[in-house]
Structures are given as structure tokens and as C-alpha cells.
């Protein structure tokens, strides 16, 4: 076919962020379940992305413990994305993670034309650093406001109010009481990419939640409680 009118065509990027707590308290079954669950959902994210070629699903992960670090320097197309197992050690410097995240949600490097980013925060404890300036900065960014933000609290030690500050909605703070919960919740979080990637617009200024809250998995009492 001859060249179409206009510049290069492009599907809209959808940036998906895993933000994982790798502090010492995550050691053992928690970090093992997290690694297993995220690695396990990547193939289904690839399948979902194939079913919607009009969105370009880009994944990256950020880990925080004593300090915060990107696992990959750049967003990776889901086709090429491989989960790198994390290890647990150190403090819970979540504020540093929020600042790194804010750097990447600023325009640029974020483009103006994109689908709302998805941020999935997984943590089992309370921040050991001053997290509020980083969180405030993140939430004041245009893309920070539009992002779909979900938190999965792992075990009973995470401070739900603090995680609600991140998500802006208590319903989007999920509580994984055991390994089975964590796997289910990570699986659900991975489906957010599909939910967000529809081209349908929504009415400005109304309910900011663009995902189906009815599908959120509930905590269970199956298995050993953390």
C-alpha cells in the first residue's frame, strides 16, 4: 500500500510499572511468592497485548529497600520483557521509589499521547524514609494524577492509610494475607493493562476510576496467614 497521509502511525503506549518492596521483612516466602506471581503473569500480559495491537504495552519494574533502583533503564515491550527475580534485604525507603517514579512520569520522558499508566505498588511494611515529598511530587504530576494506582499490602504490617494515600482510594488497596492471595492479586493487577487499553473515552472530571472495581479479588483465609 502507498504511504498513508500523515507522519508515522503509532499505537498508544501504555506504561505499566511494578513497584516492589524488597526490604528485609519480605525475605522468604513473601519475596518468593512475589517473584513467582509476576513471572507467571507475564505470558498472559503478552497474550492480552496481542489481542489489542492498538496499545503498546511497556513494562518496567522498580525495587526499593535501602535505596531504590530500576530493574531496567528503559521501558520494555511486553513481548521482550522477562522478570528478574528480586532478593529481600535492607530498609523500606519508599520515598526514594516515589521520586524515581516521578522522574519517569514527567513529560518528557512520558509522551503527551499515551494511555493512562498503571502503577502497582507491593509492600509489606511502613516506609523508613520520609516518603511524603516524593509521593506529593508524584501525585501532582499530570500523569501521576491520571495513572491507575493500585497497592497490594503484603501481610498485616503494611500501613493501609499510607497505601491509600498512594492509590487515592481505599478500594484499590488490596490486602494479601497469604501466598495464595498475593498470587491472585498480582494476577488481577496484571489485567489492569487490558482494562486501561480500550480506546473508549470517558467523561472528564467524573469518577476517576476507569477500571472495574467489581473484579478486585478479596482476601482469603486459605493457606498459612502471614
Amino acid at each position, binding site marked *: 500500500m502507498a504511504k498513508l497521509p500523515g*507522519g508515522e502511525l503509532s499505537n498508544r503506549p501504555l506504561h505499566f510499572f511494578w513497584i516492589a518492596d524488597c526490604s528485609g521483612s519480605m525475605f522468604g516466602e513473601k519475596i518468593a511468592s512475589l517473584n513467582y506471581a509476576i513471572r507467571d503473569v507475564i505470558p498472559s500480559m503478552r497474550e492480552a497485548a496481542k489481542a489489542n495491537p*492498538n496499545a503498546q504495552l511497556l513494562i518496567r519494574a522498580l525495587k526499593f529497600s535501602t535505596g531504590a533502583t530500576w530493574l531496567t533503564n528503559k521501558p520494555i515491550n511486553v513481548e521482550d520483557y522477562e522478570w528478574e527475580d528480586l532478593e529481600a534485604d535492607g530498609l523500606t525507603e519508599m520515598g526514594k521509589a516515589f521520586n524515581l517514579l516521578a522522574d519517569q512520569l514527567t513529560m518528557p520522558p512520558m509522551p503527551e499521547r*499515551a494511555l493512562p499508566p498503571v502503577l502497582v505498588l507491593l509492600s509489606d511494611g511502613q516506609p523508613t524514609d520520609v516518603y511524603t515529598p516524593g509521593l506529593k511530587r508524584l501525585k501532582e504530576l499530570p500523569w501521576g494524577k491520571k495513572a491507575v494506582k493500585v497497592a497490594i499490602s503484603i501481610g498485616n504490617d503494611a500501613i493501609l492509610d499510607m497505601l491509600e494515600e498512594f492509590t487515592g482510594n481505599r478500594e484499590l488497596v488490596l490486602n494479601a494475607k497469604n501466598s495464595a492471595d498475593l498470587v491472585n492479586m498480582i494476577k488481577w493487577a496484571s489485567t489492569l493493562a487490558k482494562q486501561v487499553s480500550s480506546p*473508549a473515552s470517558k467523561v*472528564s*472530571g467524573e469518577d476517576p476510576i*476507569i477500571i472495574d472495581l467489581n473484579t478486585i479479588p478479596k482476601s482469603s483465609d486459605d493457606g498459612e496467614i502471614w
Partner: protein
Amino acid sequence: MVIQKGSGYRVFATKAKGAIHRLNDIPNQDAWKITYLDNVIIVAVADGLGSNRCKYSKYGSRIAVKVLSDMISEIYKNTACHNAEFFTALGKFRHDELPKNMEACWKERVKQHYVNEINTGDPNPGKEIYELYATTLLGIVLTKDFYFAIQIGDGNIISVYDDESVENVIEPDRQLGVETYCLSQTEAWTKFATNIVQPRENNSPILFLLSTDGLANSYANNQAFYQVGIDYLRWIKEKGFENVQEKIHNILRTTSEKGSGDDITLALAVNDNVINPEGGNV
């Protein structure tokens, strides 16, 4: 697809169902309407929101383009079809009365549609039904002496000049992500943007392009999108107006497939002098 003559411009419009809509067997929720009044052309394009919460938006968009056409036509007739008075009236009403009347009229007709076609058992539905019909709306009025544009929500109205410079006739609704203003909102009239321009002699745009957001969202950036207007102008100059019309629907389908996946509606208004450079209006 329709071709209309008059006011120094030729206009045509078409819409293509989005790739995602074809895949999921969802109807095209866009609508367009071209109205010809003596020496005035009114072009209206609307994009029904299409989410689950807006399940009648394909009707909402159809109602919207009709409302725009009717409201502008009424103003034109009330000015005795005189261009100077028409210009004055649009200038006077564009910030307040016109958007208010358009919002009220759209909501009234939506209510009638709901009562007559959707839920005949509820003679007096509440305002919550408006979101079911949520739609954007953009339009342009072309005369020999001036042009007037009006818009609520996303979508684009751009003009292209003979030197291939491109301008936004109305600055687009730049909300990130998937949010847009639309007619269903409370006090929607406050979200309208308008522009009225009386070009200097020999400095009129020679092509106007109106499109729903599915087109601009198919490109990585504004420059790539603006190039659409330039390329259509070159194409019309080289191969003629009819050649573009024949191919445009398939082009929009492919654009949606490779780009946004969304429905795309495109209206092009081309100055007669581009089509008939030897002179003489059609």
C-alpha cells in the same frame, strides 16, 4: 460520503469503524453532518464516548451534529442570510447563548429519544441519562467572508494554508489519557471553545480538516498528525478531489488498524481554487 458545493469550499466527510470496534463487534459511535445554506456550509462531527457507561452514545453523537446544524442554521436565517449580520450574530452569541442553547437542546432531544426509543415506561427520566448518550462535538461554519468554529471535548479542527503551514483553528482539549469534556456534563456550555476568523485577502486557509480523536491518537505526536492535512492538500492538488474521496475510507480503516484502534471520522473542506485553479467557483 457527501460532496457539497458553496461558499467557496467543497466538503466531504466519511467515517470508519475503529479496528477495536470491528474486533469486538461494537457499533461506530461517531456521526457527521454537512449542511448547505445558500453560501454557507456547516460541517459537524461528533464522537460518542463508547464506554459501558455511555451505551447510547451513538445516538448522542447523531443528535449532537443535528443540534449544531439546526442552531447555526437558525442564527443564519434570523440574520436574513446576510453574511455581515451572520458574522456579528455568531460573534455575539458564541461565548454564552449559543453554547447554552446547544447544551439545552441536546439534553432535551436526548430525553425525548430516551423516552420514545429506549425506555418508554419512564416519561420523565432524570439527568443521569445524559451520560448514557455522552458525546463530543466539533463543527465549522464556512462562508466566503469568514469562518467560525466551535468545539466541546476532544477531536481536532486544523487549517492548512497554501504554503503548507498548519494551525489549530481551536486549541485542542488537551487532557491526558482518555478523558474528555462532553455535552452530557453539567454546565457543559462552559467547556465549549469557539473561534471566529475573518481572514485577510489572499490569506485564507485553503483546507480545513475536522476529525475525531481516533485520527490524532493514531500518530505519535502533533507534527505527525498535522502532516495529514498537508498530505491531503498535496494529494488533492496532484490527483484531484475525487481521487481522494475514493480512497479515504480505506485509508481511515488502515489508520485505525495501525494506530489508535478507535472510530475515525474525517471531514475535509477544500477551497474551490485548489480544485479549479483556473478560477471560477463551482
